[in-house]
């Protein structure tokens, strides 16, 4: 029995025994003082308001502060004293052992279930991640398969054409060279030479390509005179071609650049042969080298149809060929990719655009290489 202030008016021996106290000691004490500290919190925040507001509470689990500080779980039932209705409360506390264990077990089981759920969520996340990994690996596989297919297709075509010519022509020459006119003989030999040269260049590009794809592209960084390389490349292209006019302008006093002359020449040959391929016979291919941004820029312009609306970045993609390019001439779509890889490996950059001068609407391809450090500064 509690009074309105929840002080104990009367308590039975059983409760006293639970608490390890004398029955008489209990009288006058606030009920909450019998509770463990956490139970006091629950009592004051939940049980007491409910008790006052509603006049009763049922089966609340609380713990008493028992002998030696041991927490004694009880179920508490309380209601406003039915006899007086406005004066005090009757409280029944039932010690719970088995049920408390039951509830603890249930709680433990609930928590285990929650942990298991969390675990399966984690597992599901991991599975999803693994699936994404697989997908991306699959995408990688698909990409490499695509690459291989494109590679095989392009290369077989690009290799077969010159080989067919070389084979056919050399076969013909071996059988008939004694009976042929010297001019025809000359022409036949030139064809073989041209096609062999084409093969050589393709092989060089493929070599760079395979190194770049494998991340093993290594370039020398020797100081080199761009003017010399440009002159050699243009001269070579001029000898090869008979339908185009080649103009060359090399600014004086160009700084040395760091790079690999073989590769710089390879890039230039790619640019020049593209210019020849995509512009009409008799037109001019201009090559110029000048100082720019602490380095040397080299541009090759033609008087062809230009790049049109093609996005310039796409041009540098492996195996990429514009629709116009496909219609105009054969090619592997390797040269520009390789050129970009080489120039970038030498610390430079490449670009493509519309030819600026003279304004004939052709294409311009350029590269830039950084100047070698002034040896005087070292």
């Amino acid at each position, binding site marked *: 029995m509690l009074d309105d202030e929840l002080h104990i008016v009367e308590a039975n021996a059983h409760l006293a025994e639970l608490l390890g106290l004398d029955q008489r000691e209990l009288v006058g004490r606030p009920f909450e003082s019998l509770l*463990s500290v*956490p139970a006091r*919190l629950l009592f004051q925040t*939940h049980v007491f308001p409910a008790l*006052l*507001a509603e006049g009763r509470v*049922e089966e609340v689990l*609380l713990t008493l502060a028992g002998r030696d500080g041991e927490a004694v779980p009880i179920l508490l039932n309380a209601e406003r004293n039915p006899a007086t209705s406005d004066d005090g409360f009757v409280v029944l506390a039932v010690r719970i052992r088995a049920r408390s264990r039951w509830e603890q077990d249930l709680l433990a089981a609930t928590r285990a279930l929650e942990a298991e759920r969390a675990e399966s969520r984690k597992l599901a996340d991991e599975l999803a991640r693994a699936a994404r990994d697989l997908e991306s690996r699959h995408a990688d596989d698909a990409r490499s398969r695509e690459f291989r297919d494109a590679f095989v297709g392009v290369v077989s075509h690009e290799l077969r054409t010159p080989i067919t010519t070389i084979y056919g022509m050399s076969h013909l020459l071996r059988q008939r060279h004694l009976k042929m006119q010297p001019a025809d003989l000359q022409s036949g030999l030139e064809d073989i030479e041209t096609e062999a040269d084409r093969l050589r260049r393709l092989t060089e590009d493929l070599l760079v390509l395979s190194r770049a794809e494998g991340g093993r592209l290594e370039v020398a960084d020797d100081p080199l005179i761009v003017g010399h390389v440009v002159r050699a490349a243009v001269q070579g292209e001029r000898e090869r071609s008979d339908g185009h006019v080649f103009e060359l302008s090399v600014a004086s006093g160009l700084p040395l650049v760091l790079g690999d002359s073989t590769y710089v020449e390879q890039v230039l040959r790619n640019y020049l042969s593209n210019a020849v391929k995509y512009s009409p016979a008799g037109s001019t291919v201009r090559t110029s080298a000048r100082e720019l941004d602490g380095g040397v820029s080299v541009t090759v312009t033609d008087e062809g149809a230009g790049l049109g609306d093609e996005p310039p970045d796409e041009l540098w993609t492996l195996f990429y060929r514009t629709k116009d390019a496909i219609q105009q001439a054969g090619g592997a779509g390797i040269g520009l990719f390789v050129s970009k890889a080489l120039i970038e490996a030498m610390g430079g950059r490449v670009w493509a655009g519309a030819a600026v001068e003279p304004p004939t609407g052709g294409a311009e391809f350029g590269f830039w290489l950084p100047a070698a450090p002034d040896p005087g500064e070292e």
Partner: protein
Amino acid sequence: MPDVLARHAVRVTGRPGGAPIVFAHGFGCDQTLWRFITPAFERDYRVVSFDYIGAGRSDRTSYDPARYASLQGYADDVLQICHALDLEGVTLVGHSVSATVAMLASIAEPRLFDSLVLVTPSPRYVDDPPGYIGGFSRADIDGLLGMMDVNATGWAAYLAPVVMGNPDRPALASDLEATFCSIDPVMARQFAKVTFLADNRADLATVSVPSLILQVSDDVVAPMAVGTYLHERLRESTLRVIQGTGHCPHVSHPDETTRLILEFLRARDPMRHPVATTA
């Protein structure tokens, strides 16, 4: 009615043109616990009470654990309700943890409030030795949370009155005078955790709205030392002590609680109503 008012089962009574007084219930119950004192304010004041999401007749489906992971989420609720009702010069009465919520709301929008009434407040329940006695150890709080878990597992009936708020029984739910005190177990546990592990001592210095601290002389949840701690640190605070036991003086000592709040508000009247300065 704006959504926010329905969501929080906002109840507005009293004099429509009166100065607004908003009652924010504490942890462990809902707005019905104010019913012992609110009638005394209805003659002069516009009386507003509400349920936090998860308590009473609030819209429990809109409970958002992330929003209520800190007391600021509850303070935002109070501010939203005040704005939805277009209130100005609000007296905000907050019980227990809502006293802290009231302080946070007043820090966010000091000009919205005329004054705060902090019923059995505590800025931190866990001791922080040396120098601060909140009344509880971390183990005590863990014990409370564990006990709440057990009580919520199923057949323990301390949340039995929840059934009164059951949507299957709309007759009961619509009865504003229905006596019940209900709170969703999940919400209650989170509220308990946020409440009892909060530390808002640093916020006290930034409270600029005048406040009344209502302290119960023998309150295990918010002991006397905490009341004086607050009084020392809150600018323009008044401390009044109710002799008695317990944490809910508005339930156990409604008359005295009402009297002390009205005394505090009347003492502030000259400032709120310029007409008094001509006297």
